[in-house]
């Protein structure tokens, strides 16, 4: 081996310097990307608080919209309406989505039907929300001859299904095969193994998927325009038009009145905060009862 001149750094030292430099560079780049991703979120939240917080008062949460020109009024009916529609959508969308995901992951491996469902779900995920609104309009609203909360719920449920189905399938696929074998080896029937072992082990990921789908449809306006329609008054009937926060924000935002613009900002703030609260509550609830050392 040749000896290197004494006054020059050894090649390994140069490599170490270069590796450390590269390490720092990549770290800085990842931090920058994180900031870049978070910046719009923070900006939106700050701007909403700046524009909307001043219009928030008790009346906003307890009163229904006031006629034009009259001061005050609130979005109580829209908040409740959004809750009703989202509850309907979740009741329909989450069970169907999870069931379809279970079929894809546990029973349909390699079957033609499963491939067809997977393809359909991916296509459905890409359908523009306005198209979903029009489809439900012609399927339900036209047939019933009136707009309804139910139609709005169905539209949002269909939008939730593909996300939930695909996340459920992916999360079930991460459950180790050894755990399934352990259950089958104990004489546990397949259906029971799927429900009590696979699904339970995958549940944190599946809950995240459901939350993502929920948060996504909670702010949807387009599918509701043709289905739930909106309502300036209280309505608790599922077969009547119902108010919803995104719809009310939409109506107020395109109106010519400053007072209504301010209420639209306040409504947007309330919508975002309510989604955040819902997601946080589910997380806390889902994390309860997790044992020490369970990964």
């Amino acid at each position: 081996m040749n000896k290197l001149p004494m006054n020059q750094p050894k090649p390994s030292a140069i490599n170490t310097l270069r590796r450390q430099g590269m390490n720092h560079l990549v770290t800085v780049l990842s931090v920058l990307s994180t900031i870049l991703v978070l910046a719009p979120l923070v900006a939106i939240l700050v701007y909403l608080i700046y524009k909307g917080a001043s219009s928030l008062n008790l009346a906003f949460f307890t009163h229904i919209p006031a006629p034009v020109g009259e001061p005050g009024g609130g979005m109580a009916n829209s908040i409740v309406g959004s809750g009703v529609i989202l509850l309907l959508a979740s009741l329909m969308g989450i069970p169907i989505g999870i069931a379809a995901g279970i079929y894809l992951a546990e029973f349909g491996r390699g079957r033609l039907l499963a491939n067809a469902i997977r393809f359909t779900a991916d296509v459905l995920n890409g359908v523009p929300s306005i198209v979903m609104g029009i489809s439900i309009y012609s399927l339900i609203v036209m047939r019933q001859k009136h707009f309804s909360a139910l139609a709005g719920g169905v539209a949002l449920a269909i939008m939730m299904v593909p996300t939930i189905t695909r996340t459920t399938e992916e999360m079930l696929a991460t459950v180790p095969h050894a755990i399934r074998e352990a259950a089958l080896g104990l004489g546990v029937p397949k259906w029971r193994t799927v429900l009590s072992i696979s699904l339970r082990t995958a549940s944190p990921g599946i809950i995240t998927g459901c939350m993502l789908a929920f948060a996504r449809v909670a702010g949807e306006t387009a599918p509701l325009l043709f289905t739930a329609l909106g309502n300036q008054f209280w309505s608790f009937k599922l077969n009547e038009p119902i108010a919803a926060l995104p719809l009310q924000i939409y109506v107020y935002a395109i109106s010519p009145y400053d007072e209504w613009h301010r209420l639209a900002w306040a409504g947007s703030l309330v919508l975002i905060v309510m989604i955040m609260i819902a997601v946080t509550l589910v997380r806390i609830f889902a994390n309860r009862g997790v044992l020490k050392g369970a990964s």
Partner: protein
Amino acid sequence: MGVGIQVENLNAWYGNTHTLQDINLHIPANHATALIGPSGCGKSTFVRCLNRMHETNPIARATGTIRMGDLDVYKDASPVEIRRRVGMVFQRPNPFPTMSIYDNVASGLKLNGFRNRRILDETVERSLKQAALWEEVKDDLKKKSGASLSGGQQQRMCIARALAVDPEVLLMDEPASALDPVSTSKIEDLIFQLKSQYTIVIVTHNMQQAARVAENTGFFLNGKLVEFDSTHKIFTNPRDKRTEDYITGRFG
């Protein structure tokens, strides 16, 4: 109490691969029987045929007759019933990660709809004592996840889980190969104690282990059972040249 197992003309396939060819042997009740042989020789497939785990793989199939006591494994009962009578311990510890130690051990009963608290408590305690784990875990049975135990403890918990459903036969597929020497010797002690009550079939790569725990040993090679005899005979005076080559370390 354990039952004897009579295997006649057992053949098994994965897709087009003929993994077991014309296996015939008798596994006596309440003894430990070791199966040795190089990787891929079919010994794991063989034990998976005994509790019909083999057929959970869609491309796998098997023909032949396996009798456990009076029961014809492939004719008289469903796979689910067979697996309740034939417990299995796998190569790597596979605790249910979302369950406590207690629930892991009780899972075989609970998942089959058994709910009586008092009997569940008794069964969990008995099984953990049988698996020599009770003293180490009795204080946080319901607080700690089964996955938080060390590897050796997890494997003993998995043995307790298999024993909790009160099987007649216990299949062990290289139960100590992922464990350190101390845990391994604990598992071997266990097998020694358990074989008075259960029929034990243990697959192992470790020939000393086979010699230590088993009365009978079978040598598998390329899907065939080359030789089956008392462990003493296999290791001191094998009939077949291939057995001798394997146990003396000339191949495998």
